[in-house]
């Protein structure tokens, strides 16, 4: 009898499918797509695949050209047309297989992708007005012209088409157009035979063009690093703008690029800081937290109403408000360090969470409140505890896997092949932990569960919707835990785990990895070590999260790209 019991099958066994979905992101993380890496029984069970040994020379991980994420396309459409595209909503959804929606290794292009872009371009055409055109280029400021027609007007209004090439189209391409590119667009204009028709052709083309939809970064060869390319002015500007705002560069950034300011570290830093303080950055960084911590699955929470009668849509919304406010306040207002995200003895709640948190005196407005001693940091937020639970009970496995994958970036080794997963009968009168220990006590289970379970067991003081408890199934909960993978020998309860993780170098490295992956839209590997190290060192020196985030823009990885070897 042969069975391949993968780690995620282990997770599945215990974790179930909701987590398969929620954790679907993490599951794809364990190896590169298309290159199977069968597990071997002798490999070290769980070690980081990136080591900051200080000896790795500057380089960057190889990755293909990426496409704008659906979110980035939607925002760019808004910037370019002032409207909202429904065509974008018909695009195949971006995968969260590698945690973030913009990671090239998770991207695809199929018929619906191309059709979605085509509909989007047609929507832009529909939105065309004289007033709008006038804002795109001064050369287009002739009111009433669109309504008129005929070949004569097409010739007379050609300056508008030419004007668009150095204004609107440049915003879309995120760089000046070459003369060939300008000629292509003018040929389309001329071919239409009318003014309106010609402008429409330009719009259609630009919004479906590779220069708009893809982050093209040809760069120039870096003489000292074969296979690596240094990014040019507008490529740097694009990275900055996508990193912080998921949008094409604004006028100030384009000017900085055009005038060569982004060739100096100080020039990049100045623009990074400026962008970081725009409202769009707060939104983008919210997206980062949501995807890193899988908070995107909070809206899908549907706990069993019989087991958790106190849960309702209001509570779920309260959880979302708590997370949003916590990370926003911590990042900007509090200038929090990474460690303090784990140590915080306060959170942001309103009356919807009062019952869950055992707090009184809360009103309808989300406000800062002190936490009871059983809770510390975001790890004890009800949202995180609930999304790592089953619908009707906790899941020590999901919680353990969440810590290992999302917070420690540790790849779980593949379990041996040919394992029979038939489970023994379990006494339903036991606690979740006791049932679980019995289920996974056999040695083949322990290859992965030995790493996973002790983490999850230690946070059994919170139930499936994140409410504090001292008993489970009528028996006292045992909240003794450990994190063998990083040598935390023991902890007792969720708050203790959170505090124990606060200053761990593994957590600092993991945060740096996730931020770099998000920022550059590609998977990271050992070749990024010097860039990651710069971020980790900053954080370790007690600098605020926002300083660490900003510092990415000063790294070698940020300014370079390596195409995959063929």
């Amino acid at each position, binding site marked *: *009898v042969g069975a391949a019991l993968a780690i*995620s099958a282990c997770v599945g066994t215990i974790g179930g499918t909701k987590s398969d979905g929620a954790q*679907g992101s993490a599951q794809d993380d364990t190896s590169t797509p298309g290159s199977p890496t069968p597990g071997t029984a002798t490999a070290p069970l769980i070690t980081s695949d990136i080591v900051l040994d200080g000896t790795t020379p500057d380089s960057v991980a190889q990755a293909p*050209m990426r496409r704008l994420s659906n979110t980035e396309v939607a925002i760019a459409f808004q910037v370019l047309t002032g409207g909202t595209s429904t065509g974008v909503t018909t695009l195949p959804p971006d995968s969260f297989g590698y945690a973030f929606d913009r990671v090239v290794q*998770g991207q695809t292009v199929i018929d619906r992708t191309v059709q979605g872009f085509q509909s989007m371009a047609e929507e832009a055409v529909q939105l065309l007005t004289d007033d709008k055109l006038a804002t795109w280029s001064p050369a287009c400021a002739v009111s009433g012209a669109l309504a008129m027609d005929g070949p004569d007007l097409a010739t007379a209004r050609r300056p508008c088409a030419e004007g668009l090439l150095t204004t609107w189209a440049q915003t879309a391409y995120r760089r000046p157009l070459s003369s060939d590119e300008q000629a292509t667009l003018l040929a389309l204009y001329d071919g239409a035979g009318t003014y309106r*028709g010609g402008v429409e052709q330009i719009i259609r083309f630009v919004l479906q063009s590779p220069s708009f939809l893809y982050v093209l970064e040809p760069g120039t060869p870096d003489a000292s690093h074969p296979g690596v390319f240094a990014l040019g002015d507008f490529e740097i500007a694009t990275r900055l703008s996508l990193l912080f705002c998921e949008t094409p560069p604004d006028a100030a950034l384009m000017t900085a690029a055009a005038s060569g300011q982004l060739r100096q570290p100080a020039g990049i830093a100045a623009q990074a800081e400026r962008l970081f303080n725009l409202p769009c950055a707060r939104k983008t960084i919210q997206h980062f937290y949501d995807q890193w911590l899988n908070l995107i699955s909070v809206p899908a929470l549907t706990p069993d109403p019989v087991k958790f009668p106190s849960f309702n849509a209001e509570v779920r919304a309260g959880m979302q408000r708590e997370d949003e406010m916590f990370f926003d306040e911590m990042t900007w207002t509090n200038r929090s360090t990474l460690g303090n995200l784990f140590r915080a003895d306060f959170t942001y709640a309103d009356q919807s969470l009062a019952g869950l948190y055992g707090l009184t005196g809360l009103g309808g407005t989300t406000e800062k409140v002190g936490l009871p001693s059983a809770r510390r940091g975001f790890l004890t937020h009800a949202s995180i505890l609930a999304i790592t639970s089953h619908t009707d009970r906790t899941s020590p496995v999901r919680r353990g896997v969440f810590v290992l994958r999302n917070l420690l970036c540790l790849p779980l080794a593949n379990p041996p092949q040919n394992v*029979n997963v038939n489970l023994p009968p*379990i006494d339903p009168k036991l606690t979740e932990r006791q049932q679980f220990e019995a289920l996974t006590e056999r040695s083949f289970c322990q290859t992965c569960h030995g790493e996973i379970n002790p983490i999850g067991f230690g946070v059994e003081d919170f139930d499936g919707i994140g409410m504090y408890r001292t008993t489970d199934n009528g028996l006292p909960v045992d909240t003794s835990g450990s994190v063998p993978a990083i040598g935390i020998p023991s902890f007792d309860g969720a708050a203790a785990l959170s505090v124990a993780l606060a200053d761990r170098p593994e957590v600092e490295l993991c945060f740096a990895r996730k931020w770099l992956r998000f920022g550059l839209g590609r998977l990271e590997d050992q070749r990024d070590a010097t860039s990651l190290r710069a971020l980790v060192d900053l954080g370790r020196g007690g600098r605020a999260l926002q300083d660490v985030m900003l510092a990415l823009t000063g790294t070698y990885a940020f300014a370079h790209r390596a195409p995959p070897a063929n």
Partner: protein
Amino acid sequence: MTRRELLQGTAGAAISLPLLASLGEKRALADAASPPKRAIFLYMPQNETEDFTPTMASGALSFAGTYLAALAPYAAKALHVSNLTGTSGHEGGHTEWLTGWPGSTGNFTPAKGPSLDQYIANRVGTATRLPTLGLTLAPSYMLGNGGEVVSWTAQGLPVPSLGSAHQAFTQLFPSANVMNAPTGKTQQQLQKSVLDALISDYARINATLGASDRVLLDAHLTQLRQLEMRLASSPSPAMCTTPAAPAESGNMYYPDLRKLVRDHTDVLVAALQCDLTRVATFAFGATGSEGPYDWDPVKVSYFHEVAHRDKAYTQDPRGDHFRVRSWYSQQVAYLLQRLDSIPEGTGTLLDHTLVAWLPELGYYPTTEGGSSPNSHLRDKISVLLFGGSGYFKRNAMIDAGQSHYHNLLLTFGQAMGYPDLKTFGAQGSTPIASLLA
């Protein structure tokens, strides 16, 4: 009279009736003389049990007493195949399901593409408006993730399924062309010149990039070329009368499965009937499927658990599994009933469609190795085929004698009209001749 005129004429009389009514009575639109072969691959999350095993009683296939009972009216058009072998585990089963290229453990990405639906779509080419149609009951937040995706391009890029019947409908039956038609040029001319220019631009940029660097851009260029060919060759939207659109699903996080499965089925049948696509995947959930199937009499809120756990977690694992699978059968019966109600050539649309019930995991009797249907093995796999008249046996049970599952995929590919397909997947090299009519 050209084929297109004929089709338009046929369709012309119908107006906006409910999806079912407008199409149900009509003949399929594909050329009646030699209807094309179609295939629907049903992805059934989790495993099958002994309750998946029909019997032969006096020469007739019978589903009595199994969770397939609802399919009784179509037993005469069914072929049950047992004793195939494949790759175990959710990852193995999910990734090799239609590709024959199991991924590594811990990874829901197959080692290679294409999946069989994509292979067939490439062979069909631009004869139909859509290359393939991929539908799923998985919740929206799973869409695009490896555990949901069952279809992969030849380049190994994922083809996410559609979780919204409304969206699927819109794709099949686009509302009147949204393009403005400025005077002087036709819409098609304008559209074509933009496409031509885009194709040149993608080709120009791709030429400057290494093959691995431009993987997405290459896929984009391919799709643009297909779009252009479809624009040239085909199918104006008038090819088939547009049936009424299904309503947009409410909660996409947890769609109403009972409504969604019907809406998906109606859209799928319309797509085949109108010859808008010839191959489809229809997933009854993502890997492991959770449901929830929380209505009477199914009442299983967490199917994955049932198929995993023993009696500590469900008092009656076999019964719970049975009720979920029975519900699946009822939905498949509805699909078959729709297909079989549409006359085509000398038979029905069902006769010219292979409907393949293919489980994610294997065949695992609850009596083996424990008390519950918790297996992730695929050392034994059973599948159930319907339709495929003239190319598959019907009213039969075949023991495949441990032939590899990939051989089944190869057999499908050849039977769909591509005998030059000699291998499929990692181990598909010998078609299973005993299945063929």
